[in-house]
């Protein structure tokens, strides 16, 4: 494969990774394997490195710069930013969850105790939009 084609392949891998991950974020199998995008950027960087090794052309350098930047950013997000320290939680399977009363989006108050003896409850904690 020529240096130009390798550079194009590297950029294609980067583009497909960004696009694919964004489009398929709702699919648990994709979302729950974020190391996949890190691996894809590493492959793209290797391909770009091969391109530069073959012939020092601007296309190879461009692909190398893009893929190494994405690999650095992706690694930082996945291995540093997104890592949650394993702090102890107050929740144990088989134990009662602490009660609370809070407003819902419509401003009505919700108490966990209101559901007791009536319905099972699924509580989902999420980060929100800050």
């Amino acid at each position, binding site marked *: 494969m020529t240096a130009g084609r390798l550079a194009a392949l590297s950029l294609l891998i980067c583009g497909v990774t960004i696009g694919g991950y964004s489009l398929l974020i709702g699919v*648990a199998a994709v979302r729950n394997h974020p190391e996949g995008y890190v691996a894809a950027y590493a492959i793209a960087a290797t391909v770009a490195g091969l391109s530069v090794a073959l012939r020092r052309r601007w296309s190879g350098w461009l692909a190398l710069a893009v893929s190494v930047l994405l690999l650095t950013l992706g690694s930082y997000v996945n291995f540093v930013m997104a890592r*949650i320290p394993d702090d102890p939680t107050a929740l144990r399977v*088989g134990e009662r969850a602490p009660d609370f009363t809070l407003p819902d989006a419509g401003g009505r108050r919700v108490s966990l105790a209101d559901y007791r003896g009536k319905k*099972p409850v699924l509580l989902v*904690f999420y*980060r*929100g939009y800050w």
Partner: protein
Amino acid sequence: MSPDANAQSQRLADGLRVNYRFVADPDLAVTRRYGLIHRRGGPGGRDVPRPATVLLDRDGVVRWLALSANYQVRPDPRDVARAVRAL
């Protein structure tokens, strides 16, 4: 449950068109009591909730729990549905 303002949660609820309730815990008091804080995990080193899915039975007892060690990772809805059916 999230620290989002009600208006923000209402937009999310309208967009998703789901019939569950969005509960606001703006100062993270309840999230903290549950021990579900990702310390300094937000922008500017602010505390944010640790993504967690908790299934309680009719008696309010925890029957199933999904905690993530990476905030990009969330439970597969099929696993949640299976846990609900197993109640």
